[in-house]
């Protein structure tokens, strides 16, 4: 999708779907600036090359002020979306930019057949927790000292409604609960904040 196609304006903020290599430095700069976890360029490429349709950028007067980076794939017989990074510049927070960004990603995930969406957030990140709570995420688990700074995380989950009434039973019965550590391939913690 080209930048112009994906644009929409609200309060002077333009939202753009990931459009290619020229967006990569913008995403990297923003994440580097706002999040403490160090990501190598390969991590960014892993996401934006495999799932460009799930990454969005928010611009204000030509400046990139927010971004969301996601993935989706099979996870224990479930097709699952995962929000890896969500960042909005400090001075632009509280204007609904993060909600708009993440909503766009979730919509694409839903249209792509995802059954659920997950992410991790620091238990102290009240803003992010409230945002995801409003979108219908529940706090499924608490992960003890998940981040290297010793802070616990919540695993947040959003389950999409299912058309078939008996679907939940069959899905749950086939899930493999034996290996806790294999719970997602995100072995290295991510911070997500907005």
């Amino acid at each position, binding site marked *: 999708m080209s930048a112009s196609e994906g644009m929409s304006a609200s309060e002077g903020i333009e939202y753009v779907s990931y459009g290619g290599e020229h967006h990569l430095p913008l995403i990297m700069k923003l994440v580097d600036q706002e999040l403490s976890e160090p990501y190598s360029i*390969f991590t960014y490429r892993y996401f934006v090359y495999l799932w460009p349709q799930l990454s969005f950028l928010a611009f204000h007067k030509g400046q990139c002020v927010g971004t969301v980076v996601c993935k989706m794939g099979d996870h224990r017989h479930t097709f699952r979306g995962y929000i890896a990074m969500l960042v909005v510049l400090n001075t632009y927070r509280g204007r609904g930019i993060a909600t708009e960004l993440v909503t766009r990603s979730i919509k694409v995930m839903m249209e792509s057949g995802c059954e659920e969406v997950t992410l991790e957030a620091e238990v102290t990140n009240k803003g992010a927790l409230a945002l995801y*709570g409003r979108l219908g995420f529940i706090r499924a688990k608490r992960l003890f000292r998940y981040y290297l700074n010793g802070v616990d995380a919540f695993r947040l989950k*959003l389950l999409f409604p299912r058309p078939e009434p008996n679907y*939940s039973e069959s899905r749950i019965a086939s899930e493999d*609960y034996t290996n*806790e550590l294999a719970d997602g391939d995100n072995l290295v913690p991510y911070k997500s904040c907005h």
Partner: protein
Amino acid sequence: MADKRGGDMKVPISPSIPSGNDTVWADVSSLLRLACNDLRSDELISGENFNLFAAMSALEIMDPKMDSGIVSTYYSVDEAIDNGAAPVPLSFDRTIDIQCVIDIMDHLLACEATWHKGGSLAQTVFSCIYLLRPERTSSHALLHSFCRVIRTTCNAVVSAVSDARTNEEEDLFIMAYGLQLKGDGDEKCLSMLHAVEETISRQLKACKAPLSKRRVVEDVEPLQNNLDLEEGYCKAVLCRLRFRKHFYHVLTCLRRPQGKGLELAKKHIVACLSELDSMLKSEEFLRHNCACEISRDGIEDKTTASGCQPVGFDSTLNSRSAAPTPPRSIKLLGWKKAVNYFQKLLHDLDIICSYSLDPVLEYALRFVVDFQKVQPDLVARAYLQFLLVQDGKLYGREPMFVVICKAALLPEGTKNHNIQKNETVVQLGQLLISLLRVLCTNTAWQRRKLGKILQDWRIIYVQLELAFRKEYGDITCTSIDQNVCLKICKNILIWVEEQTYWIALRFLMLGFELELYSPSEYCMVYWYIYVILIKLAEKTHLKMMLNNDSGRRKAKKKRDLVKDMGKDFQIPPAVLLLQCYIYVAEGLMMMLASLRNEHKVFLCLGPFNSEQERFIQHFELLQKVCLPDHASYLSFRETTARARFSTLSMHNCFKDAQRIAKELRANFANDPDRIAELRRIEQVAEHNCVALNLVSRLGTLEPSLKISFEFSHHPHFASAAVKRS
């Protein structure tokens, strides 16, 4: 991304490595070289197996955030030593030397506490160069003995935690990264420490003696040069040495089998706490006389009592061995916080030592659950687990079958019954052991694990039923008779159900402690707690009713339960207490439901899903194993959809809860913990009663009135607060 040029290349088969049956070794250097020419900096070839973990494992060389090598001061311990980073003695001025040694002791305490709190051993305690090269300090008796006891203590703690280990999340603690945790002669550390302590206490005595008596002790060489400061330094060193000695004793006493060392451990805990007090008292003296210039800023962050930076530490030395994650700089706890940590640890260990090792499972479970409320750290939890389960027995004393018989209220004689050899009964014992272990883990992990083991408990019930039926015929068709076997089977089955509901309840309750529920979800959570509680009360009551013989009364007496238990027409207090909880849960559920129905607050609304999805996600582990049968989102909606304040005031559950709680006080008069719990329940009921009346009277909620639910009186049962904003 490697293009056609590479594709046309012939890859030479390497003759130097012999081929196997299915493998051929080939030299791909030239192919690789060509591919490299095609790639620009930062580009990568994405293969099918290139996953997120692979992407995140990439390190950017020379980036200080990722490249652990770049931030090192020295390349090796030897280089650090050659550069004078850890001199022995620390100074030829003996006063400065002793000051520096005390700083090392204090900094090691800060390191140790940071390690216990989740830091890696390599970057904390073993950042001490003296510890890394133990042989170098042999000429310095004080430093040498101190380092040895530190290492031995670390080793003891690592082995306690690794023996008890039940989850991967806290694995970092026991990673020793090939560090030398055990040194030759470490077993003699206490005698070495004792010898040094003796010498210093003689030095202390000598400097305190009046002039006339000084001659007798003249042969005692002072600790350092400045006689005015001698007493202060002797005292500061002594309390630090004695703390280490007693702390080591505490740890070894706690490891004695069958809880035999608990009494002695308690004495050493008292001694430890008193030495920690003395250490805190020495702070002023040390700060006043320290050699370095210190500012008052950030005094809280200082890792020594004196406020000076210690000599002989480099946290970057082990950074290359601190796999698996790239090492980050660890913020050490300040010295005072470290002392506070040890005080807390010792208090927690004291709670363990004060436990009566009650052979009744119910009490053991309650003890662990109550102990978790003080939020013990890993080390204390590991020692509790060691105490609870040893050699497959409760406290290393009670075989699990005996524990189960008691829990199922079976008469004393059944404990030798052959049925304990049945494979499924043995498995049941194993399940109980793993439950005890899980209850000792951190609550976040514990909840997840409890959710999963519910399945095992459901399965074992079915297996037991089959096994019993196979051995003794169809037991469900027979009424209770003299047949002991039948009695055992029936009671054990009921107990398994009761225990399963107990686990489910703990799973739900822990959700509050872990802040997993949002206020809009409280209604469904209390509904679930309510239905689980009803089943639990039902099973507990049934179990007690089944044991209507003299054997049961005897067992009761032994358990020192309430006196009126013998009166069978009365509901037992244990069941009444559950009834009390049922009323509170029901009251909260209905109040929340009415608020939702009438005032449209605390609703689960979202753009992507409905309340049903939240219900499925929160309770999927319970639903999966039909706990309880027929509990579904539909039944939750049916119960709550028509709730109105007008009908609530007719049947006020909170008043019932208050009434029962008051009545129960007499029954639990000898149990201060239960009395405190009853008080909390009464407070919750009282507050909610008032709030309920207020909201009902107002009819419609004024926009300025805000109602919120707080856990101000009880960790699991919320109190409604009505406030004007």
